């Protein structure tokens, strides 16, 4: 039953893994800087790159974009 489908990742976990995978944050930033500030900055970068409204918030449009099918090449930097 669709209602029983539970998405495995919480929104925040989804966002963090997305921003890391596509180059908007680095593992170093992940560990060191102030979480809230760096998340807002990274979200704004992603929203700018994908032509979304630059709110710096994890809003519905941003979450939907994170769930949408896409190419795996990082948006910032390239494969190492």
């Amino acid at each position: 039953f669709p209602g029983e489908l539970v998405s495995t990742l919480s929104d925040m976990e989804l966002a963090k893994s997305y921003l890391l995978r596509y180059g908007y944050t680095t593992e170093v930033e992940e560990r060191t800087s102030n979480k809230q500030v760096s998340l807002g900055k990274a979200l704004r970068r992603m929203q700018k790159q994908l032509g979304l409204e630059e709110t710096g918030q994890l809003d519905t449009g941003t979450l939907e974009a994170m769930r949408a099918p896409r190419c795996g090449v990082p948006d910032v930097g390239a494969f190492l």
Partner: protein
Amino acid sequence: TFEGDLKWDHMDLTYRVMNYSPDLDRAIIDDAFKRAFKVWSDVTPLTFTQIYSGEADIMIMFGSQEHGDGYPFDGKDGLLAHAFPPGRGIQGDAHFDDDELWTLGNGIVVKTRHGNANGANCHFPFLFEGHSYSQCITEGRTDGLPWCATTASYDRDKKYGFCPSELLYTTGGNSDGSPCVFPFIFDGTSYNTCTMDGRSDGYRWCATTANFDQDKKYGFCPNRDTAVIGGNSQGDPCVFPFTFLGQSYSTCTSQGRQDGKLWCATTSNYDTDKKWGFCPDRGYSIFLVAAHEFGHSLGLDHSSVREALMYPMYSYIQDFQLHPDDVQGIQYLYGRGSGPEPTAPVPVPTEKPQPMPTEAGSTSTTEEEEEETLQPTATPIPVDPSRDACMEKDFDAITEINGELHFFKDGKYWTHSPFWKSGIQGAFSMAYTWPGLPAVIDAAFQDLLTKRVFFFAGRQFWVFSGKNMLGPRSIEKLGIGKGAGRISGALQRGRGKVLLFSGESYWRLDVKVQRVDKGYPRATDDVFTGVPLDSHNVFLFQDKYHFCRGSFYWRMTPHYQVDRVGYVKYDILQC
């Protein structure tokens, strides 16, 4: 481009397909990759040659989860594919996630464009050599008989098939007057259309073969549950028939949305049966994703332009064209070559179309005035409330204006809104609402952006903004040649485009520049397969395409599937 403007140091590139996805015929995957490379060779001096052994510049593979390069895929949906910028070894290679459903993007694997021995259209799915086909890639005519090849490399496979010889077409409905829902089972055989229909003892029947006199194969369409209203996880309407838990369904009763996924219940008492099903995904277009990934293999990075091929998110596009952003990027790296000029965005015309001398009593306007917002048309005055739309045999034109369906006939029109219980309003006077318009028109449509209303009669057209009229002007002004007869209808598309239908062809009109796009007319049958080619009215209503002939209409989903046939009066006008 990538940092350092990575690019190949030679133009004649090679590629090799290391393995294939089971979702599609190898030939179809080869064909899709070939077309994807052509996207780039068309606008640069680059050439691409497929090799079948050894090390190619671009090695292509399908893999799932961790597949050998340290950048694992993630199962169905989400990450579809990736590729590496130009260079040696893994550089330049392209990998596709094989946990995705790879198709041509519109959910069906191959597409027919031809009909069967007696020239009628193929009806899908059809069986050939025990295999069910929903389309075919290539078609032709041998000894006067049309055939369709079911794989792109039909030379080698010689998989020809003649669509079923039965000329099947439903116009029938079942006992409650609703159209047949296909496929339906009668006498143990599944039918997806029927030839003739009629009514005996209050029941509707449909004959399942052209020569029904002898065969007397009548069948009552199964009582319809409901029409499909479901969709799949990508938000697309269901593609029918679909199988769920091994059972094939042609419609679903109820739908809903959970976690962004659409679902559809397959029985009316779904609470107890809990027979949920996700309509099969349309899948992802191997051609579109490959064209994007090969852009990376050639040195292009992601774009921020939503309409560009190199934008990172996937969206299915039927008539694909490279965006100037893509062309500028690849030509920055490799130059232009002898390919066709990239289609620069068409400049909006500077000259103002001089309004033609107009009939007395109407106020023609210049372009500026035309830009003003539409005044709400005054409440039309019924000329003849006794005149009943339900008594009309058919209509000159049908279209939706300001959210209400308008039915035009001999200088009068009626409106019907699906939302208000008031049902049919009118008859109203066309001359009162649109002064200067002829009494008998052929077609009309409202431009969704500017709210202007276009009318067509013979080879002329009029544009109204409220009561302000521009015209009449010849349809040749729009770029529609002399060969075209009357315009029979219009379908509004996105981005200011409208399809205009005439006879068995259609044109794509760019409403802003009021010119039809290059590459038109096209054969209606190529895309709108399964609707009558001599429709009297064509209109968009509730996001579906309606083709009317006589008292019937054929309704088609945005995925070009006829999902309903019925009576204009009973179903649409609700007489």
